[in-house]
């Protein structure tokens, strides 16, 4: 509703014409380089974690969790900085989030069914 009052207050054209606050916020080249460095570190971490898992037996779930956490961290960096979502207007941020929420809904509900169902069924004749 915050949005409503702003655009009403300005009586502006769409949400946009008055969003000077967001529009010229600018990400500097230095930031890009730092983000890239962070991405490289994460990259090394994910391969490193995989390599370690090959040597010491970690719980499988932990391995997946580490890999996914790193992938999500990378994604967040790319989305926020390289894709400028950090300095974009609200609607853009909302849609960037919507994609991941939509996917999460699909996964959580579908996997809920699989957990409860016990699939695949054990082979052999039905009991």
């Amino acid at each position, binding site marked *: 509703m915050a949005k409503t*009052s702003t655009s*009403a*207050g300005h*009586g502006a*054209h*769409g949400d*946009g*014409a008055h*969003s000077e606050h967001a*529009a010229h916020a*600018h*990400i*500097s*080249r230095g930031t*890009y380089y730092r*983000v*890239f460095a962070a*991405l*490289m570190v994460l*990259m090394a971490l*994910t*391969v490193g*974690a*995989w390599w370690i*898992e*090959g040597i010491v037996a*970690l719980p*499988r779930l932990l*391995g997946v969790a580490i*890999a*996914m956490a*790193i*992938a999500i961290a*990378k*994604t967040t960096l*790319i*989305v926020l900085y*390289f*894709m*400028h979502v950090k300095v*974009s*207007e609200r*609607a*853009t941020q909302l*849609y*960037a989030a*919507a*994609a991941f929420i*939509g*996917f999460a809904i*699909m*996964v959580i509900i*579908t*996997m809920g069914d*699989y957990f409860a169902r016990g*699939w*695949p*069924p*054990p*082979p052999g004749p039905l009991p």
Partner: protein
Amino acid sequence: MATTTPTTPTATPAPAHEHGHEAHGRELLHHFESAQQQKETATLGMWIFLVTEIMLFGGIFMAYIVYRWAFPDVWAEAAHHLNTPLGAVNTVVLLVSSLTVALAVNAAEEGNRRRLLTMLGITLLLGATFLVIKGYEYSEKFAHCAGAANPVAWVTGGARLGESECLVPGRNFIFPEAHGAEGAEAGHGTADSYAQPQAGLGSPYQLFYFLYFVATGLHAVHMVIGLTIVSILTFIAWRGVITPTYYTPIEVGGLYWHLIDIIWVFLFPLFYLVH
């Protein structure tokens, strides 16, 4: 809500729109009021489209999650037959290309045409490199199906593969004999019976490679589209269309490129880094 909203009936009447393009640059399409509005609209539109792209790959990831959850052992074993070093190199290639795209946008913003062209050029090179590496990985798998030890041998009729192996899903699919029963007690119980090394198409190994080929294949298709977009961007930048007041195409095309990168950031650990 509507009633409580503070409303100032516009004090200044809306700017009457001049039809003729003297009032603004030629890039501004007639139905927009300002360049700023046009840019924000384009960015928002691209993001909405990216939502659909994420959901499109989301369907594949969904299938991946189901089957990995059901066949953890199969997954661990199947993944060992992918070329992890090449996958890692490709990830780095894409991450670098994301950086160059971000720098290209920055150069466009600052009106530095030379740097813009350089960055776009590097991006094109990196994108092509990615596809070449990916193509090599694919050809390895196809070469094995043809009985050759590697793609070069496949072409030249050189060294043959020792054991029969064909990891391209299809009627000839054959997974090489499992290397020892690793982690038989891990994972959830019912799957174990499926995890017995079964060589042919009827084995869940095939699911892994099916998903691998579909996911990376669809990703590669997106890479080709992305390369086309960047080529067009390079062309228009070269023609001097891009200015500090009008660099929306770079910004929007860049968003698409980053998305391709993000998809790969997930594909890499999910297919290459499985234990």
